[in-house]
């Protein structure tokens, strides 16, 4: 899906505050991937980082809900920015 659109793919944790990204993939154990998917983190969906802090958790907005994600988890959600 992201093949023909030149852009960067980074972990959600690296997304600066207020910036939007499109979810590409979640890497991680089955339970984690499943939980995130159920909460609406599916590929192709837009996610905005509302709050982020160095080494702390992030607050993300996805499908109209505001979800706190620990840094470890946020490193496993890959998003596409720019393009």
């Amino acid at each position: 899906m992201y093949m023909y659109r030149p852009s960067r793919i980074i972990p959600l944790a690296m997304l600066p505050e207020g910036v939007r990204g499109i979810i590409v993939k979640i890497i991680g154990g089955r339970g984690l991937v499943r939980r995130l998917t159920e909460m609406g983190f599916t590929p192709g969906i837009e996610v905005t980082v509302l709050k982020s802090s160095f080494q702390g958790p992030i607050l993300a907005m996805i499908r109209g809900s505001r979800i706190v994600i620990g840094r470890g988890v946020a490193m496993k959600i890959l998003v596409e920015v720019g393009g």
Partner: protein
Amino acid sequence: MKIKVALIGNPNVGKSLIFNNLTGGRSHIGNWPGKTVEKKEGRCIYNGVEMEIIDLPGVYSLTAQSIDELIARDYIIEEKPDIVIDIADASNLERNLYLTLQLMELEVKLILVLNKMDIAENLGYNIDVEALSKKLGIPIVTTIATEGKGMDELKKIIAESIHREWKAKKISYGREIDELIFKFEKLIAVERQFSTKYPTRWLAIKILERDEDILKKIKKSRNLDEILKNIDESIKVLGDEPDVALAEKRYEWISSILPQVLKGIRPVTLSDMLDKVFLDKHLGIPIFLSLWWSLFRFTYDVSAPLSDLIDIFFNRLGDIVKEYISNEQLASFIADGILGGIGGVLVFLPSILFLFFGLSILEDSGYLARAAFVMDKLMYKLGLNGRSFIPILLGFGCNVPAIMATRTIKNEKDRVLTIVVNPLISCSARLPVYILIGGAVLGEYATAGVYSMYILGIVLAVSMALLFRRIIPFFKSGRTPFIMELPMYAKPILKTTVIHMWERGSLFLRKAGTIIFLGVISVWFLSTHPWGSPIEETYIAILGKILEPLFYPLGFDWRGAVALFFGFIAKEIVVGAFSIFFGFGGEGEEESLKQYIRTHKIFTPLTGYAFMAFTLTYIPCIATLGAIYRETGSWKWVLFTVTYELILAYTVAFTIVTAGHLLGFT
């Protein structure tokens, strides 16, 4: 005929409030996800139809990962209620409908409730309820639970549903997947052991998703080989994460109907702006600490004059009793034992009410969940995450519900760790001791002294968690992922707050009438018998003198020792015991308990402070021990907690006294 009605939905959508509205029940309400962790039953009668309503923990799907989720899932899937009410947050339809789709697949009699319609409206959303109902094929009721709106409609539709049948729409997953589902369905449909128990299409979907629970059940199938072969084949179509593939399809379906039923885009809300401040990386923790400080300041200041009034009341009553009852033993029993001892505890009713008032406001405003965010970094250092901070904060009220709240923690080791350190969090039962001793000996630093106990509690809990992680092999574990929905801020609702205060207040009174009563009366009896002897020669003094050497290094005399001894039952008894020992003094001076403790040098500021710290730490009360046993399922952890806390209490108090001496205090 009684119909069984289960309430299910995402966390924090208002299930328990609706439950309370329908049944007159008292489920815990607050504005953060994960409050209800066990199932609760209540009754409701409408038009002669009797309904048994079941409140369940919140879930995002029917795949359970933690104890609370398991309770909800099992109830819906295995107990088969007659009606399932799916409560959805109207202001967050997209995500909430995900669970709805899963429930539709279960082919239960499903009613959708769109709650929080007021919030949806404030956000400018316009929901075409009729169109949505058509798309899903299920009846919908809109409600505003906080205002009781829609409750009658809901009752009506439930009552009428006995005579009605309806079938939810089947969601198509696209041709390829639908074909796979159909294949499995055919294989299962011929086996009555499955097909009579669960809907075959649902089972087929679960097999396709490779749901661990269902795969276990399927092991008994005669067609097992065929099923397994088909599963292998399905991987070619769905990839190695079939559950994710299906979840995506469900969301795709939701996204496809949403524009037709929902108008409006989510604006930037006040919540978003407030979070800029409350969740700020520099301000977050200072704001947390100052809010907490204000809470205790408030509790302390507002309750003090009320407590004085109650104190005066019991004293007067005691005087009257002594005057009019000629039998000395009876007079002492009533005046010193009941009015002095129990009265000495009841004096703190206002403090406890206002503490819970404050806590309730923090919960209802939505701040509690923010505190979990702010504290995540700290908790991360313990190998825990922000979620574990919520039981800590709840512990300020009472350790029992706090320990139960750990059910939402998925990793068993993290959960047990969070449980065993929780008793170090200073609950409301310890507050009376701080107020009494702190007020007596710390002078103008009393409030700061009390506050410092709460800080000390957190510091100790955190240090112990860190220590246990390091030295106890059981607690070595990987990290639990931190994922938590953040509720919107809300104006606290007076009714909820008052109910919460009332609940806790009546619990305290009940405790005062039972367990505290027993403890205090025992203290009274032992401190007045053999009848007529000076207190130094009573039974309690004998017990106290045995314990005294143990506490001598800490600077507590035998009375402190005995008070702590009985305080094991419930920590309020410590205060009750002191009121018995010093309350009546017998010297005829009109001095308060606090003055007596100060002027008779029962405690110096230093030993008083150490006594407070000891009370904080030394042993969980009986109710908390019971909760530890229930939630860990083992006496081992109960014993562990008691042992480490006793050692810790002694160490902490001894350190305070020793450090104080070095600094020149006495």
